[in-house]
């Protein structure tokens, strides 16, 4: 049991940060992201004895995160509105802070399920098939939700898009939908 506990502690320690980033991209709010990750990790811990036999704890945790996020959005849908500026966007740690902020604001305009697809596909770097399996939908659904989500994202970004090529992509996506 001691080994199990240590492994669990290590898993939480290593995965909490990356999960928090994903959670923030999903919900656009640090407090909500903290709650989301806490709920997810608690569920993972409560899975307890089964974790020793879970084939892919990463996938289990990701799916739990997405499930908690989507179900929480159902309950909180009326509370959720695109933000003019996301709360809790203190000094950025790296990358392009202005662009990052703009993308996160734009993400909040994307419906939750499409947002989940975008985060899994383009932040977590999962394939279409992996994303489909994790969300329990078909690869075709992942592709269509991804395309729609990106169209919404880019439309919301507007002039903030980093280059003309990206804007051309937006037009192409909109034409396909």
């Amino acid at each position: 049991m001691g080994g199990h506990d240590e492994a669990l502690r290590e898993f939480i320690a290593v995965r909490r940060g990356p999960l928090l980033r994903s959670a923030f991209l999903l919900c656009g709010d640090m407090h909500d992201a903290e709650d989301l990750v806490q709920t997810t990790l608690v569920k993972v811990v409560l899975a307890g004895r089964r974790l020793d036999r879970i084939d892919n704890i990463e996938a289990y945790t990701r799916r739990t995160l997405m499930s908690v996020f989507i179900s929480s959005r159902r309950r909180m849908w009326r509370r959720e509105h695109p933000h003019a500026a996301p709360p809790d966007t203190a000094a950025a740690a790296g990358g392009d802070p202005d662009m990052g902020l703009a993308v996160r604001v734009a993400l909040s305009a994307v419906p939750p399920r499409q947002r989940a697809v975008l985060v899994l596909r383009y932040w977590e770097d999962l394939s279409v098939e992996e994303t489909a399996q994790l969300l329990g939908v078909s690869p075709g659904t992942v592709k269509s939700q991804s395309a729609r989500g990106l169209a919404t994202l880019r439309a919301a970004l507007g002039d903030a898009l980093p280059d003309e090529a990206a804007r051309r992509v937006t037009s192409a996506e909109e034409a396909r939908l």
Partner: protein
Amino acid sequence: MNHPDDLHGIDRTEQDSDDMHAHRLLGIAGDSLPIPYGSASTAQVDAVLRHAGRIRRRRRFALVGGSAVAVAAVALGTALMPRADGSSSALGDPPASSASPSAAASAAPSATARTGTPSPSASATGAPRSGLHGNGDDPEPPHTSARPTTTPKTASPPPSKTATTTGTPSTAGPAALVNSLLPAGTGTVRREADRVTPSYTPNPMSGRYLLTKNGKTAYLDITVVDKKVNADQPRPTMAQERATNHCEDFGIVAPNTDCAHVTLPDGSLLSTFSAPGNQQEPGSDHVSGPGYDAWIIYPNGNQVEIYASSGITGPGGLGPRYDQPPLTKDQLASLVKSGAWFKSS
């Protein structure tokens, strides 16, 4: 609106370009977050574990599963074993424990003393996501390979001190007792090897028991908590259990159904539920079959939970499963109420 498959028709290069831009956008959004890279602090980890602990205490057990020394299992199993005259199957006996402290001590887990051979199927998880059980982690004591007869009381060998001290494979032991308590035709009983050493003293009866019949495999996850044998095993109070909803939908897998709490005439609390199939962990390749769960808590704090599953299929599973759970709900309720579980003490 285009059909999703229409996307297959778009130019590959264009799609790749889309993906690159999307990766870039999400990468900028994620990388610029004010969240430090690196491991979480000890306090943050502790916060998660404390939160889980509170829920666990409030709602139910989260057992990792029992593990026992094979020699101790044999010793206690021998003590458990029905007498040759068949007079000690103890069905219906009150669940009083007669265990001595030394018996409890002898059942303490020891990774070095385990002799059970891990089953290839041990990686499969089919347990429902609620309940007291949680095994499949116990050692398989001396291979109790087959149900000896449909009249096990007379077929079981008498207690043998030799078996007790040497751990010689025998039909005696926990699997033999389980075998003796099951209805005829349930299947051949053997105990699955353990994979986890719990932090508490496991009851020698606790563990996963595989049932095989006609080339198909089901299983029973049995957890026994006897205050005189394994008092350090975490357990809920009757009030906590009564307040627990085992059918709560966590939104991860299909929830349990038919949850019920019934107070028996002797003051015991019997909790039951049905577990649908497909309750395996998300991302797992194997598929759990449906099962039933019964859990009794006696007024003195002793408890027994048994989960009867039709089996686990798919990679890492147990092979073809039973068409139905190996026991009916009524049979399971009778089994869990047996006083025989406490005769080992």
